[in-house]
């Protein structure tokens, strides 16, 4: 796969919810091997944009193209063959076995009245080992912790074998270790499997993390119903942008971690009253 394969194009996208504008004039392109971080305050429309990208909601204006096809022309099954989804929180009802959950990622490749075949099971098993959860294969997934569940959701998305994975705040509610485990897995997927990732996040440092790992990372700062700024993490995530977007003072630090490796982070310091 060529590294500049264009997987998705969004043009002039706008969405209204009951005549209340949620976002407008959204434009971007996504290529294989890229991570696109959607970053912005609560209620800025990140999740709505993700739902449009997943085909769950229809844009009011503009277009979303998956490769070269308008998303409105695709059936749920065809969308799911291109885009997999890792939810923010997964509500568990029945204590399915971990492997059965991962196997559900094969639905888009299974007939209407069909059940998955041994090849699907094989793919599910592999996906489970990629995220390092194969030892929980037969555990009821209701017994897993939040972080472990998120890894299972990631494995399920992986079993879907799509070029694009969409994640909605995948590390919300996770502890330090599991946050890193998720991020490390994401880096592995992008680097080794060449998937492209669209990720809504509240943590600007995630974008730095990916950039520090040498992945082509783009950040869209979503504010006032559109992309306020757009570009590489080091140019977007700045003290001035934090102030404009969140009304906070912050401190950007850049620190040598080891020889030839640096860590860049932004630290929130205090809130300031809004500028008029």
């Amino acid at each position, binding site marked *: 796969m060529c590294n500049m394969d264009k997987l998705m194009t969004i043009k002039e996208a706008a969405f209204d919810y009951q005549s209340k504008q949620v976002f407008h004039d959204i434009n971007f392109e996504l290529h294989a091997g890229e991570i696109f971080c959607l970053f912005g305050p609560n209620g800025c429309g990140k999740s709505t944009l993700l739902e449009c990208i*997943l085909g769950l909601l229809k844009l009011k204006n503009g277009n979303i193209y998956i490769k070269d096809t308008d998303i409105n022309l695709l059936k*749920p*099954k065809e969308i799911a063959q291109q885009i997999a*989804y890792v939810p923010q929180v997964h509500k568990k009802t029945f204590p399915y076995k971990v492997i059965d959950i991962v196997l559900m990622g094969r639905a*888009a*490749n299974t007939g209407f009245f069909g059940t998955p075949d041994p090849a699907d099971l094989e793919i599910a098993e592999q996906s489970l080992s990629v995220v390092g959860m194969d030892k929980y294969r037969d555990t009821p997934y209701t017994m897993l912790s939040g972080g472990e569940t998120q890894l299972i959701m990631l494995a399920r998305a992986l079993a879907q074998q799509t070029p694009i994975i969409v994640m909605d705040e995948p590390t919300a509610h996770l502890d330090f270790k599991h946050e890193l485990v998720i991020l490390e897995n994401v880096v592995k997927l992008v680097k080794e499997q060449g998937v492209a990732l669209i990720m809504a996040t509240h943590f600007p440092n995630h974008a730095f993390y990916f950039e520090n790992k040498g992945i082509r990372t783009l950040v869209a700062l979503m504010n006032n119903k559109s992309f306020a700024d757009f570009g590489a993490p080091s140019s977007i995530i700045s003290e001035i942008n934090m102030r404009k977007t969140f009304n906070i003072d912050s401190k950007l630090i850049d620190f040598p971690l080891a020889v030839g490796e640096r860590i860049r982070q932004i630290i929130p310091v205090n809130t300031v009253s809004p500028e008029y």
Partner: protein
Amino acid sequence: MNRTALLIALVLAPCMLIFVSLFIGRYPIDFITVLKVFLSYFTSIEVADIDKTVVMDIRLPRVLLGAFVGASLAISGAAFQGLFRNPLVNSGLLGVSSGAGFGAALAIIIFSNTLLIYVFAFGFGVLAVVASYLIARTYNTAPSIMLVLGGVIVSSIFSSLISLAKYVADPYDQLPTIVFWLMGSLATARYQDLLYAGVPMLVGIIGLVLMRWHLNILSMGDKEARTLGTNTNLMKTLVIGFATLATAGAVCVSGIIGWVGLVIPHIARMIVGNDNRILIPVTISLGASYLVLIDNMARMLTGSEIPLGILTAIVGGPFFVFILKRTKGASW
């Protein structure tokens, strides 16, 4: 437990129970006589006409119908539990039972013709589900919570209409018929019933069996199911359609038999887990076995028949508690 052994047990259990049921009853027929009756069709063995009539025309259709009804109620209950992501729902969730109850009561008052009772019960059962679905339908989809709400509304309207029907019914003739119908019974079962009601039950059961794996996916919720590639609107409509065919087919010939559609899926969950690929077929076996067993009790326990709707809970309740304690609520 060994899977093959389990599979064999699940196929054999209802068959054995159906066979055993043939020599259970007020009129004494022993094992050998039942065998002779069967063999008389293929060989020149002579059997008394009365034995043949009791086994082939009275007991066999009743037992087969019981197996079908039990299987239909259990499989629909399991399917609804998956679809609505709620282990507490049963096959009557969308109002099919109360609708069918009202249809039957109406037919008893107006026509007092058995065939029309079936037709009305089936028709109103389906109508109730369609009404629930239409109530729930907003913005081109039917969210599960709205469906549940629609079902509650429709069920209570039809329950009131059943009360109205009882109120206006002739208290010496029609009222007892309505009351007994609502308590459920297989006492009048004939091959005809199996023929009429068997078709929707069979279509519903086969449909749900074919869709069993997609029930797993629907139980992830609408949003995730969509992103996994499922046309949730179509799938939900189909599951509701098949479950309604099966339940309405069952209820129209048997009356209202509660509990099977709730408890059998749970017992199945405790034995084989929650994967619908295995669970759905298992509920067929358990549902059929359970209702055949209960119907035998209904025939045998007292001098006159006990309505099935009473026995399913009285026997099923303690049995459920026993299973619950035995497996310590396994996997819940």
